[in-house]
């Protein structure tokens, strides 16, 4: 079990507020997705795993090392925080080299790694640019490069694709999948598409708790029989969104085809049970766990 992250009954409080509640997970080599709404506790869990936060109780071992042993955890972990920023006046290659130096890498190895990583994240031609001159996508790629410069066993990436355009997002997800071939990559996100495209195993979090853990297909299977489509008149849409979890809408002339997640079959004309997708399955998971997801919220 030395290639796993094992989390057992972990609690974490910020003052009186409980941020993590009885979290238990086993994360093996490959991509693992942590899916949840903003404020679900994903970042807190990520930071606790990266030895940046102290848990209040429970046990965590990362590749056999207790998380309390911060120096060893830091050596084997690469971390890309939610808001990645760097000294704005540093050049791209300098920034990478500096963070490599902080990771204790010798100069020669650093030089080689900077070269290869810049190439890998498509930043070679931007290496002389100052960090402040990079676009959002380029910065994220620099972020991932800095997180793996010391070749960590565990890569923790927190909301890495937020704010990226579709092309950058796809490129980023592919890069993460490549990296997951020989290490644990823990991806935290509230974007279902990212998990769907990259992860086989996932956990759904809300209010500091793990609501569900397993494979993507198991989560989808869990929602089978609870996802429907229906054609409704546009004027009924506001009322519909109040009563049901609407995960998709396709406008067609006078009607709109809606995807609905519901426990009992919705009392609507032309309702057809349909194949669940991950988005619907995720919403069903939240709904069946007692979370309030109605009201037409964006997912």
């Amino acid at each position, binding site marked *: 079990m030395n290639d796993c992250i094992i989390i057992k009954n972990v609690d974490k409080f910020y003052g009186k507020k409980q941020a993590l509640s009885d979290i238990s997970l086993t994360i093996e080599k490959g991509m693992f997705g942590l899916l949840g709404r903003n404020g679900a506790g994903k970042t807190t869990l990520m930071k606790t795993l990266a030895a940046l936060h102290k848990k209040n109780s429970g046990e965590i071992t990362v590749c056999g090392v207790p998380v309390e042993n911060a120096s060893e955890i*830091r050596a084997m972990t690469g*971390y890309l925080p939610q808001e*990645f920023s760097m000294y704005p006046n540093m050049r791209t290659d300098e920034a990478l080299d500096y963070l490599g130096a*902080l990771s204790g890498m010798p100069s020669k190895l650093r030089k080689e790694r900077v070269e290869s990583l810049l190439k890998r994240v498509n930043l070679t031609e931007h290496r002389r640019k100052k960090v402040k001159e990079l676009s959002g996508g380029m910065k994220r790629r620099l972020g991932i490069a800095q997180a793996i410069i010391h070749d960590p066993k565990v890569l923790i990436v927190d909301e890495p694709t937020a704010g990226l355009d579709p092309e950058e997002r796809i490129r980023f997800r592919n890069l993460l999948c490549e990296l997951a071939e020989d290490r644990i990559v823990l991806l935290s996100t509230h974007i279902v598409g990212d998990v769907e495209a990259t992860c086989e195993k996932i956990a759904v979090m809300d209010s500091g708790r793990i609501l569900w853990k397993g494979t993507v297909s198991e989560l989808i299977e869990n929602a089978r029989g609870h996802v429907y489509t229906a054609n409704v008149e546009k004027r009924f849409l506001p009322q519909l969104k109040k009563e049901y979890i609407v995960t998709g809408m396709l406008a067609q002339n006078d009607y709109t085809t809606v995807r609905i997640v519901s426990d009992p079959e919705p009392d609507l004309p032309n309702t057809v049970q349909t194949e669940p997708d991950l988005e619907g399955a995720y919403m069903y998971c939240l709904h069946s766990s007692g979370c309030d997801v109605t009201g037409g919220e964006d997912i």
Partner: protein
Amino acid sequence: MIFFKDCKRIARSMTYLIYCVIVALFFFTQYFSDCRTEVGPPFGETKAVEDHDLIMSGAALSLAEDYFANLYICYPFGFYKSVTLNEKKQEVIEDALTEMTGLSMEELTKLRDNAEHYTSYDGLHEYNGYIIDSVPVSSSLTYDRFLEIMKKVNKTLGGGSSYKPDDLIFKFSQVPMTKEEALEEYDNFTNKDRVTGALARLFSDYTGIDAAILPVFVAAALTSEDRRRRMSDLVYSRKISSFRLVFTRYAALITAMFLPLLITMIIAQIQAVSIYGSNISMTALFTLPSFWLVPNIMEAAAVGMLFTELFSGGTAVIVQFLSWFLSLLTGSGQLYGKIRSFTLICRHNTVFGRDIFMTYHSQFVFNRIFYIVFSLAMVTLTVFVYETKRRGAFNGIRLFGKGSLLRRKA
């Protein structure tokens, strides 16, 4: 190496650029302009000598005049304060005066009655002052006993008075230099100090003032940069130990901030050679100022790092400014001479006075070593605070601004 990378990072910052400009301005407007002409023998100047008789008679006369006026000028923490004593405390001074002079109060009062009388006004009250010709000093009074009396008098006055034992020599034992003494001072300047030894003290005196305050700005800016750039987690998650990171950054700060001073030392050396020729010490303008000024940079940078990690950059600046200001004020009456063991800013605002400087040399050395050790202790404490923050167990205490401790309490 992280050290050089951090030096480069500091060198690129606006705060450091401003630091360099101010150091240069201070140097050229103070030391450089003062030393443009060749120094000659100090004819007509006074010097402090440790003459116990002179000190005791001067202190007794001054105390008698102050007593009869019941007006004592003091400088507690460097601030001007005119002290008027109540009856009970005046009796303490009476006892001191009678013991010092061997005269009864009646005899002392007679001296007052024969003295020239004047009135003075301090803006609030009118005082009766007396100019007494002289008072005797008791033949049985030893100097040790005299110092004990002075200590008690100074305490009665609330401290910072002219009778503070440490300051007696400079207050009451100034004598005009004879021609021979002036020539001897000049000989010390040219031969013992080999010119630059003396210039080094003056250089350090001037530069010490800015070296004791300016580094805190650079240190606070560097220390708070990770937080300002929202990259604390990025740095916290690296393998490097907190000890190595904090001490490397500290070393980079000291090096970067010493560099402009080193350049001014080189300019001062070139100036000295151009005026006095090459038969002067080529090392003194580097060795003494380095030993004198580096502890100041170290202390200010350590305060900058520690208080920025604990609270904020603003708090660090306030703390250092207060200690700098108090040090300047407490030494304001004395621009050269005794160097106290714990004063932050050592002064010697003259190219002469080598003998008096050497008299207190061991205290000077102690002072500088104390500040080096004190600074290193503060940096070690910074390591502890940094590691605690890094583990998420402490997030710093905000004293100012939204959600701060002070605002919450208010």
